[in-house]
């Protein structure tokens, strides 16, 4: 496998994780500092199932995601009712708790020494297929009523509630979606790197995902994917002095937030005519957009 492919797979896995953060933090405005912990759950559970219990790989991945969803339901149900800051704190605490359990259960996880010898079953093709599937799923959610509800809750939760949206219920669903995607990414990553250790899943990893989303634009799926790609693959390939790299990223983020808060992409979405019949509603104000709606209105009238 060439180095380029390796980087590509890592990037694909990162994007899948970032997609969850895109929905959760970008669209809904909930900051979870525990997303990486879900990634860890996905990685450890799937690796354990395959290596220790000889469960077939696809089933193990499904079970790992279901496990993360179960944990996510419990965490979401208890913490999403409380205020936003508390939610950030609670997810932070959750992440630390998960890492503590991973470190403590040495018998199963290998503790700090990590869990090595996971077979390499994530092929580049699998990673590519997983990426496409994840992007497609998230895109569908983004441009359904759920995507709208996310934005509404982010902008004004009270007004959304008054319009009949059960904000708690919605947040829980979005949180589960994010947890599931993270766990999925985790499982793929465990079976690609062949090694997992608790230190990989700290809160800074979750923060990095949030940064990637804001880099590209929190309202734009294309932007989130671009952010994840640029910030994870580019430095890998260019390999310039890493201590400057992080500093430069941070500066870029600060500049973006201060001068272009909507992110590099704003609301702009890449769309392929024919491939996507549904256009992002409200994408880009201006004449072109208005015309598009008019055309579409016409088409609806015909149908």
């Amino acid at each position, binding site marked *: 496998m060439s180095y380029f492919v390796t980087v590509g797979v890592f990037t694909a896995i990162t994007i899948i994780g970032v997609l969850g953060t895109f929905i959760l933090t970008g669209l809904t405005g909930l*900051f979870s500092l525990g997303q990486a912990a879900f990634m860890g759950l996905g990685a450890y559970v799937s690796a354990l199932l395959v290596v220790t219990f000889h469960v077939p790989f696809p089933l193990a991945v499904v079970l790992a995601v279901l496990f993360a969803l179960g944990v996510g339901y419990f965490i979401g149900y208890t913490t999403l009712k409380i205020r936003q800051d*508390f939610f950030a*704190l*609670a997810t932070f605490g959750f992440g630390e708790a998960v890492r503590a359990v991973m470190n403590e259960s040495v018998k199963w996880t290998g503790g700090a020494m990590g869990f090595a010898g996971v077979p390499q079953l994530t092929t580049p093709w699998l990673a590519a297929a997983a990426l496409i599937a994840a992007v497609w799923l998230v895109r569908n959610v983004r441009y359904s009523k759920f995507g709208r509800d996310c934005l509404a809750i982010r902008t004004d939760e009270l007004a959304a509630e008054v319009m009949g949206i059960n904000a708690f219920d919605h947040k829980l669903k979005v949180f589960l979606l994010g947890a599931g995607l993270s766990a999925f990414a985790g499982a793929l990553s465990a079976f690609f790197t062949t090694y997992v250790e608790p230190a990989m899943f700290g*809160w800074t990893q979750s*923060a990095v995902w949030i940064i990637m989303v804001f880099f590209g634009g929190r309202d734009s799926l294309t932007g989130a994917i671009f952010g994840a790609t640029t910030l994870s693959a580019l430095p890998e390939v260019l390999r310039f002095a890493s201590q400057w790299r*992080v500093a430069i990223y941070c500066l870029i983020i600060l500049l973006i*937030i201060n001068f272009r808060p909507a992110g590099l992409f704003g609301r702009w979405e890449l769309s392929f005519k024919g491939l996507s019949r549904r256009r992002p509603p409200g994408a880009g104000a201006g004449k072109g957009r208005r015309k598009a709606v008019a055309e579409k209105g016409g088409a609806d009238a015909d149908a």
Partner: protein
Amino acid sequence: MEGTSTFSFVVQQMVNGISLGAVYALIAVGFALVFNVLKFSNFSHGGVIGISAYVGFLGALHLHLPLLPTLLLGTLAGGVVASVVEFLAFRSIRKKRGQLVYFFVTSVTMLMLLEQVLVIFFGASFFTYPQLIRTTSFTVGGVSISILYILMMVCAAVAFAVLAWALRYTKVGIAIRAASNDLTTTNLMGVNVDFIVLATFFVSGLLAGLSGVLLGMAYTLYPQIGQLVVKGFIASVLGGLGSLTGAAMGALALGIVEVFLITVMGAGLSPAVIFVLMVVFLLVRPQGFAGVSFKEKA
């Protein structure tokens, strides 16, 4: 025979818990101060702690400053750095009435940036302060008390007393308190909001600087030292965001709980238990120990 009785063991652990709580309190109060006014969790506080810890270190190492000037230097550095952070990173978001997420992302980014500045200038390995205090601890009835922790508690007490006084009796302090009730109203009162916010960051930075130097002296100096801010974060939420006394109380409670958990069940799983306690606590008492619950107005 260095054996200890159960009594002195318990007392020693209480002392350990309170000492730890005092460290957390120094962080938590500065953290809570910014939250009070701007209503966001300011993680860049940790970055300020880190920078000032190194500034104090440079002063002590190269200028051969004794204890008090070192503390003063670090404290001032913290105030200055925090002001710069406010001016560069938060001001324009505030002016644009940016949403909470932006403040949050900025503050986390700022923490990473300041950490990275330290990595660039000092490398990632660690340093230690020169020894600024000669004696390190004394023993009372089998219980050992570290001089440095005494110093921390004294510093915390003095800092909190000065802070309480300033918030009550100085013009700026009163304005900060008014701003913590409602920033826009403060503007209506004719007080310059920009100045108040800057002042809040400055004061919070002073506390960060003080805690930075003390942490650097007590522990080793490494770029990520500021990540201890998460302890302040936990403490201030437990105490009830929006209340300085609450933050201090939360910090003390956190220190004691951590020591208790380590004593009873070891350090390994204590983060998990703390998480469960935290969630239960937030569900049962979302306003924290002393905080006021915020309710959105329609």
